């Protein structure tokens, strides 16, 4: 399709990367030949795009007309591999989604790696492959990056940072402070899947479930949603802190209250029961492939239909509405018929024993 690809693989006088049994060592971060080989064979080899293949320190590109959106996120998840994904796929989905939540189409990503000495190359290779797949599915390219290696004991295996750019076309205005009383609140699917999937793998938890992380890129879903309803007021992805934290943020930014209907919130039965066993509330559990949309009430049904028509929104639901409330409380009508608050969470959600 374009300029001839630079050959990857063995340079004369060097040994190929031992992806099966090899480990990252300090030379891989030192800026010398070992590092160049790691970058070329592994990163450039997998991410493989025109901009990256030129191997400049910086990537140069032009963007289509519109307002430019930039976002960054760092990923420190433990464990690195979990049902439904790994730190790599998460790193791509996370930043792609942040860009999409501004109503922007994402184009390019950076990827910075901080790797602990001794980290298995097999794991690194798997992570990088996952990033490449995730980028391809999301229609973005990883065009520049950085690699550092830290001494053993000074890093948790691997940390990844991704930053991304995208473009918002004219006519779209989405921001956390634009929710209006009367607006409806929608989600694109079941809540709590990611957090429970990750917790099921961590130490101290010894149960087996069929729950997988919902980690996925939402750019294509958002695109369909904006086609159907261009005047969506707010989009946000409920990651750490779950639906509760995100709605509280929005309520405060917009100076409104929000009321949820417990029975309308989609939660998988296995996630419900895992939360019961752990004493967790699904409203506070992290999601990595979900979004909240807030739109004018007369457009809610149309938006719901558009979401449900997309595979990443098939379980979408209207879960609440925005109210006039100077205290900016988020509350919920419980399944029982009473009402409770859905407050910010203090600290990490420590599972109840009581």
């Amino acid at each position, binding site marked *: 399709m374009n300029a001839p690809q630079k050959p990857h693989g063995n340079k004369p006088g060097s040994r190929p990367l031992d992806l099966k049994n090899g480990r990252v060592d300090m030379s891989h971060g030192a800026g010398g030949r070992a590092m160049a080989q790691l970058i070329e064979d592994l990163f450039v080899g997998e991410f493989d795009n025109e901009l990256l293949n030129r191997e400049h320190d910086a990537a140069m590109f032009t963007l289509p007309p519109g307002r430019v959106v930039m976002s960054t996120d760092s990923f420190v998840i433990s464990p690195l591999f979990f049902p439904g994904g790994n730190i790599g796929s998460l790193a791509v989905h996370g930043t792609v989604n942040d860009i999409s939540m501004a109503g922007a189409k994402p184009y390019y990503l950076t990827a910075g790696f901080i790797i602990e000495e001794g980290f298995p190359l097999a794991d690194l290779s798997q992570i990088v492959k996952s990033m490449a797949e995730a980028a391809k599915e999301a229609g973005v390219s990883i065009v520049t990056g950085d690699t550092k290696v830290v001494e053993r004991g000074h890093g948790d295996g691997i940390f990844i940072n991704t930053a991304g750019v995208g473009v918002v076309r004219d006519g779209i205005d989405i921001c956390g402070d634009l929710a209006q009383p009367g607006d409806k609140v929608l989600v694109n699917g079941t809540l709590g899947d990611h957090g429970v999937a990750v917790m099921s793998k961590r130490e101290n938890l010894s149960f087996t479930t069929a729950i997988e992380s919902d980690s996925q890129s939402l750019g294509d879903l958002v695109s369909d949603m904006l086609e159907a309803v261009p005047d969506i007021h707010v989009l946000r992805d409920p990651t750490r802190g779950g639906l509760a934290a995100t709605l509280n943020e929005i309520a405060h930014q917009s100076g409104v209250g929000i009321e949820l209907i417990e029975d309308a919130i989609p939660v998988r*039965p296995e996630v419900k029961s895992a939360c019961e*066993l752990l004493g967790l509330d699904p409203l506070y559990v992290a999601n990595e492939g979900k979004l909240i949309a807030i739109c004018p009430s007369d457009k809610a049904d149309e938006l719901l239909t558009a979401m449900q028509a997309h595979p990443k929104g098939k379980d979408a639901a209207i879960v609440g509405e925005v109210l006039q409330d100077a205290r900016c409380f988020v509350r919920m009508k419980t399944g029982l018929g009473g009402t409770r608050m859905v407050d910010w969470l203090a600290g990490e959600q420590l599972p109840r*024993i009581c």
Partner: protein
Amino acid sequence: MCHAIPAKVIAFRDDDMADVELEGVMKEVSLALLDGVELGDYVILHVGYALARLDPEEAEKTLKLFAEMGEAAFAQGAVA
């Protein structure tokens, strides 16, 4: 400190341990505090131990009681 949840016993393991299931989620718990548990029994779990066996007949009776209380109140013309 009472957080406890009923789950079904689906398999026995060594050392007084057992697998229980709660709607598709399986967990290994200790039966050290209960005697005579059988497969299919529901047990009340607390901090990794089964504390009591749930009596299905009593559970039914209790649910019926809730319904009767409500019906009687409505029948007397009470308004919510």
